[in-house]
C-alpha cells in the first residue's frame, strides 16, 4: 500500500489514569504536499508537543481548559483527556520543511514532498 501516513496507535488507551485519545484527523494529498488536519478541541498552543523522530511523527495535546475550582459540574459529556497521535511518515516527506498551525481547535500540518520524490521534468536538449 502506498500510503505515507500510517496510524500506529489504538484509538483510546489508558495509561496511569490519563485517558489518551487518538484525535480525529483527515489527510489531503496534492502534488507537492500532504496536508494533515487534526482536531484538538480545547488544546492551546502551549499544551501541544510535536516531534519527528525516525520517520515517526508524534504529537500530544493536553486539554487545557482547566476550569476554576469554583465551577460545580451540573452535567458533563466531554471527557478530560490527552490527545495522542503517532503517524509513520514515508521517506517521501521533507521532514525539515514540515509546517504547523493551530486554529479553532484544529492543527494543520503541511508535509512537503521531498525534492527527490517530486516528478522531475527532463528537458530534451
Amino acid at each position, binding site marked *: 500500500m502506498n500510503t505515507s501516513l500510517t496510524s500506529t496507535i489504538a484509538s483510546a488507551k489508558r495509561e496511569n489514569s490519563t485517558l489518551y485519545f487518538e484525535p480525529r484527523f483527515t489527510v489531503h494529498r496534492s502534488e507537492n504536499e500532504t496536508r494533515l488536519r487534526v482536531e484538538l478541541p480545547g488544546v492551546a498552543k502551549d499544551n501541544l508537543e510535536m516531534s519527528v523522530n525516525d520517520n515517526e511523527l508524534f504529537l500530544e495535546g493536553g486539554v487545557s481548559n482547566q*476550569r476554576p475550582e469554583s465551577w460545580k459540574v451540573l452535567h458533563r459529556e466531554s471527557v478530560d483527556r490527552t490527545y495522542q497521535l503517532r503517524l509513520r511518515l514515508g521517506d517521501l516527506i521533507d521532514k525539515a520543511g514540515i509546517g504547523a498551525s493551530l486554529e479553532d481547535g484544529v492543527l494543520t500540518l503541511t508535509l512537503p514532498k521531498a525534492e527527490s520524490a517530486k516528478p522531475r521534468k527532463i528537458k530534451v536538449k
Partner: protein
Amino acid sequence: MKYLTHRYPQNTRSLWGDFEDFFNAPSPFMSSSNPLLNWNSDSYRPAIDLYEDESNYFVEAELPAFSKKEIDVEVEKDRLILKGSRKEEGKNGKSEISFHRSVLIPNAVKTEKVAAKYENGLLTVTIPKADAIKPLRIEVQS
C-alpha cells in the same frame, strides 16, 4: 422537518431541564461520553458540559474546526440554542457539517447578559444568575 427529541434522566441537573437534539441524536442509553464517536458525515452532536458557580451558569461545547462566524448562540425564551454549520472538503467532495443543540435554562438568570467566548475550538457561554438566586453573604458584626 423530522427530528428526534428525547429527555435525559435527571440526576445532578436539578436546575437544568431536558436536552434536545434536533437531529441525529444517539439514544441516551447507548450514548457514549466520547464526543468523537458522535461524528458522522453531515451533522453531529457536540459534547456539551454544564457548570455553575455562585454567580453564573456555564455551558461549554466542543466545536473544533468551526470559526467564530459559523457558530450561532441564541436565547429563545427559556432556551439556549447553539447551532452552526461549516463546509468540509472530504474524499467525496464538499460536505456540510452542522449541529443544533439546545439547553433549557433556569428562569432566574439575566438572559440579556449572556456572553459567549470561542477559543481553541471550545465555546463557553456564560449565563449570569439573577441576584435573587445568588447566595447572600451576611457578615457577622462584632
